[in-house]
């Protein structure tokens, strides 16, 4: 049981690290022309996604 809790906490730490790094470096800064900085594996050119719409109420 103790091991399971530790593994769960480690998984939480890994995911929290990943999401924090993502929020710090990807999507927040902008390239020229207001293109968001996203990471993608592989080839150029990257088709940047349209800006997100506001959530509907």
């Amino acid at each position, binding site marked *: 049981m103790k091991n399971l809790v530790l593994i769960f906490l480690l998984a939480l730490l890994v*995911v929290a690290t990943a999401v924090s790094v993502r929020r710090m470096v990807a999507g927040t800064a902008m390239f020229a022309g207001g293109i968001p900085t996203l990471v993608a*594996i592989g080839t150029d050119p990257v088709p940047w996604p349209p800006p997100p719409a506001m959530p509907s109420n």
Partner: protein
Amino acid sequence: MDNRIISYVLQDAGILIEAALVLYVAWTRQWKKQGTAAFYLTCLLVAQLTRACVLHAYGFASLRYYYIYWSTDFLLVLSAYLAVCLLFRRVDLRQEKMWGLIRLLLVLVFILVAAISGVSLSLNRKHFFTYFIIAFNQNLYFACLALNTLLYVLLRYMDSTDNQLALLVCGVGIQFAGPTAALALVHLTTGGGFALWLGSLVMRLCTFGMLLVWAYAIIRAKDKATQVTRREIPGLAEVTAELDV
């Protein structure tokens, strides 16, 4: 020189190296031994060729290219995650009990990443690609980076003598950590000229660097010892002892 020319040269050279490595593994019949590298390289090659064909047929501005690009990115990130899992499996080849715990960790990380990305989808279900696929790709990409770093620390901690595995892990590290560092630089310099120039090139450079390291690992380091020795670490000993009960 124009950034685009350098980028395309790196990209095309990378595709050639990928094809050469896949052919080398097939020619020397090392599919089983080099399974992780061969699997990821094959996925990379297929995705890049698919993107190139769609780009040529429909153009950059087409919606098809957009969907194909991010769908193949989804598959590439999944294959990268699977490759990292297989590298973890290779470390713990002689420790089935530890592998059970690490397998649970990998499954939990994947579920948590999917759940967190699902929050983005809940904002607007009409834009599945914008809100879920891309968010999921980004989150899993950085989760691969975190797990690969964890794997590297584990290898150092266990005094692994598997040189090939260390090189493969370093290659994955170059692929994931390089772009992250460049994006952090872009963010810190709030879009400074040099950072933007570096940011636009660094992803291709890092993929190219990973391919060179992997080529060395597959061709030159193939005969090195694959034995993994483990120090008797109290933490690990406790874990295995508890599982014995």
